[in-house]
């Protein structure tokens, strides 16, 4: 490393750590940097991040990483053991398992990503509204949340997906429908503590409208814990998705999906155990990475827990 770049790094570092930030942008960057420093101190969380990035990369580069097409059937080559030609063997229709697992990362990340995008805002809106308004709005919204919460989440997703008809998109909707309540509850709890803060009182006295207070002042304050919660629940989303696929209610054939692959492999368990082992490991890896990352985030935001 040259002296020059070292200097620039040092100045970047001091820019990020200066006590009185000069601009909003700098303040944001600072808090990100500080957060990153704290996250980096947790080796498990770093592993989580790295694995997630790795899986994202695999999903993105699937066509280049996969050795075969995930769809091409060669009946004559079915159920082959792992070899140089087929790294993880072939499935019951002679498709390359390694390539299907690589493409399966796309399916899983697609589900997890979309669910996060749907669930975060919905949970946040409902929770913040209920918490801020209180009264009967809160009573009604929280009763609904409770009802959804007392329902086993896999069963709820299962019921929704069978009502909507089995397909990948419906699985996403079903999982989203069954995972917003936890986030709503959290957002409401956060809102309750923010609602009575001096800062919100001040905004209210200045005549801000209720929607404005909720959207501009309450929600941003809830955001960090909601993000943590969403990240953590991504792990269980990946599991639920696999469970639905396992029960034949997720992605439909021939889409490569780990849960569905596991379900077909179950038939060949005794002769070809690796067919079931690999998709299961893939599910475990993704789910664990989300858990490690989310856990690190939680520690970072709330060092006491």
């Amino acid at each position: 490393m040259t002296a020059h770049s070292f200097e620039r790094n040092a100045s970047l570092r001091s820019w990020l750590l200066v006590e009185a930030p000069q601009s909003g942008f700098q303040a944001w960057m600072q808090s990100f940097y500080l957060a990153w420093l704290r996250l980096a101190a947790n080796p498990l969380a770093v592993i989580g991040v790295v694995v997630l990035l790795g899986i994202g990369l695999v999903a993105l580069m699937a066509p280049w990483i996969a050795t075969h097409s995930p769809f091409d059937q060669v009946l004559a080559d079915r159920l082959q053991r792992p070899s140089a030609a087929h790294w993880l063997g072939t499935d019951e229709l002679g498709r390359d398992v390694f390539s299907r697992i690589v493409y399966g990362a796309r399916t899983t990340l697609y589900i997890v990503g979309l669910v996060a995008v749907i669930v975060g805002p919905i949970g946040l809106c409902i929770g913040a509204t209920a918490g801020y308004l209180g009264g009967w709005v809160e009573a009604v919204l929280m009763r609904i949340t409770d009802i959804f919460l007392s329902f086993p989440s896999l069963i709820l997703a299962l019921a929704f997906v069978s009502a909507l008809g089995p397909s990948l998109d419906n699985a996403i909707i079903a999982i989203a429908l069954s995972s917003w309540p936890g986030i709503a509850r959290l957002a409401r709890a956060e809102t309750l503590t923010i609602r009575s803060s001096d800062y919100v009182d001040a905004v209210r006295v200045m005549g801000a409208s209720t929607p404005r207070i909720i959207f501009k002042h309450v929600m941003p304050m809830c955001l960090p814990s909601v993000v943590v919660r969403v990240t953590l629940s991504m792990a269980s989303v990946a599991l639920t998705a696999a469970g639905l696929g396992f029960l034949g209610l997720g992605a439909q054939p021939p889409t490569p999906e780990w849960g569905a692959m596991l379900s077909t492999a179950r038939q060949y368990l005794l002769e070809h155990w690796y067919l079931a082992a690999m998709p299961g490991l893939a599910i475990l890896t993704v789910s664990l990475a989300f858990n490690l990352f989310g856990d690190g985030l939680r520690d970072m935001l709330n060092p006491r827990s």
Partner: protein
Amino acid sequence: MSSLTDLAPRRNTRLRLPRWAAPALRGGLSVALTLLGLLALTFFIGRVLPFDPIAAVVGEKADASVYENVRTKLGLDQPLYIQFVMFLRDMLSGNFGRAIFTGNPVADDLRHVIPATVELATVAIVIGSGLGIPFGVAAAVYRGKPIDHAVRLLSLIGHSVPIFWLGLMGLIVFYAWLGWVGGSGRVDIFYLDAVPKRTGLLLVDSALAGDWDVFVSAARHIILPALLLGYSSMAYISRMTRSFMLDQLSQEYVTTARVKGLSRRRVVWGHAFRNVLVQLATVIAISYGGLLEGAVLTETVFAWPGFGQYLTTALMIGDMNAVLACTLIVGLVFICLNLITDLLYRFLDPRTR
């Protein structure tokens, strides 16, 4: 699975809201409303499901006249709200109706399946807390040390592993390859009905009858599913233990005690641990309730004739009497657990007292 991660915030938010549960009447009303809502939701989901209980009853070969006849017999020709009211009326008089797929009254079926699940969950929770508590304490005492990270990793893997997959792999390795454990089901075939049914818990019944062959067979069958379930509850229990213990260990009395020369072991187990016992009991109760649900896929993989398998099968053929009765039970368990936690916390936490 996911239930375990979902449970923690449920408890936390509850305790910040004492005014909700404060008047007992309102509390009771809200429980009743939640249950009613839960039943209504289940009922209407059940009715929009494409699973057709009539098709399950009559199969492929019945003609249209038989099909209509069965529809009338099952009361499915009535408008939805009437079906729901009829269902509520039956339920209030303690009549869950008949399950289509077993041909038995649902109440009878439940008497068979619930003990099976209770037995599995009990062994699982013994394993889960037997491992989880020491691990959690160790993680707290050695915070930031390798053992802390190891416990955390172990528990996060417990949260992350697809339990049905672990079950399949466990069967392959320990049953098919090594032959260490029994296969699926509760007991070897020859021992079915070998001991008189007293509690419905096979381990207890066989011990009471002094039939150790049956006991051994039952133990060989229960150990693998119970270990798997126990592992997932261990994941939760060890995390909660760790955080409770950290709380205690940062208290002043701990420092004082250490300064006064008490051994670390005395302080950890004699003082700090004693103070978290009630909280731990709650956590164990919660994960015990969670096992009811967590057992769904495990029971399927191990062909365990319990509650989870019963519920899944009922749902898959749209057998609403059975599904609704099961939902009611799951809902009741969760609501009761929530109430217990609320009460305990109000009792324990000086800020809410």
